[in-house]
């Protein structure tokens, strides 16, 4: 029993810390894509670990915790992908620090988009 409580407590602490970090990430990062990066990863793991931690504290809740975790792990990346794609389609340029070297892929996407509009 004791062991489970300790594990649960640690998981809860880790989870809340990562949730906080995720929030801090979306505050500090310079543009939408970087914010999405920080937001998605940190909050997903944070929520997962916190909820599993609660499951450890109350073992009878474990199944429901797991299903919530599965839903979060499944849906969070999809929503952030959809958002990133939306920003991209609306020509919201990401901040690119290193020279012009990655503009190729970038421009390609825009060409694709314009073809889609025409067809």
């Amino acid at each position, binding site marked *: 029993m004791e062991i489970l409580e300790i594990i649960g407590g640690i998981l809860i602490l880790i989870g809340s810390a990562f949730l906080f970090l995720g929030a801090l990430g979306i505050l500090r990062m310079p543009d939408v894509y970087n914010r999405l990066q920080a937001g998605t990863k940190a909050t997903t793991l944070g929520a997962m670990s916190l909820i599993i931690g609660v499951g450890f504290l109350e073992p009878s809740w474990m199944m429901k915790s797991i299903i919530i975790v599965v839903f979060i792990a499944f849906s969070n990346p999809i929503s952030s992908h959809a958002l990133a794609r*939306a*920003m991209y389609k*609306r020509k*919201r340029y990401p901040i690119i620090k290193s020279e012009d070297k990655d503009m190729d892929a970038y421009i390609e996407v825009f060409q694709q988009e314009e073809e889609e509009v025409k067809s």
Partner: protein
Amino acid sequence: MIYLILFAVLLLLMLAAAVYATFQRDLLYAVIATGVISLVLSVIFYMLQAPDVALTEAAIGVALTTIIFIITIRNTVRHEDEHDKHSREKKIQP
């Protein structure tokens, strides 16, 4: 003690979102702010021991209200003080 702080923060968040929704000129942002209101409101209902109400607020406020508002914006104008009658092309800017 921590509950007091949590309550205070949630209430302030909700009020701030309400004020933001009222005074923001971009209607899309105002609509997203109403989403925040309903999220925070649902957590407050939960803390007031009303899970049924929280569930209802969550189910209706998260997606359904948002979609209806957004479709209205899509069909009309995006900015509050838009007098220009044919500005539909400029409407979608993130």
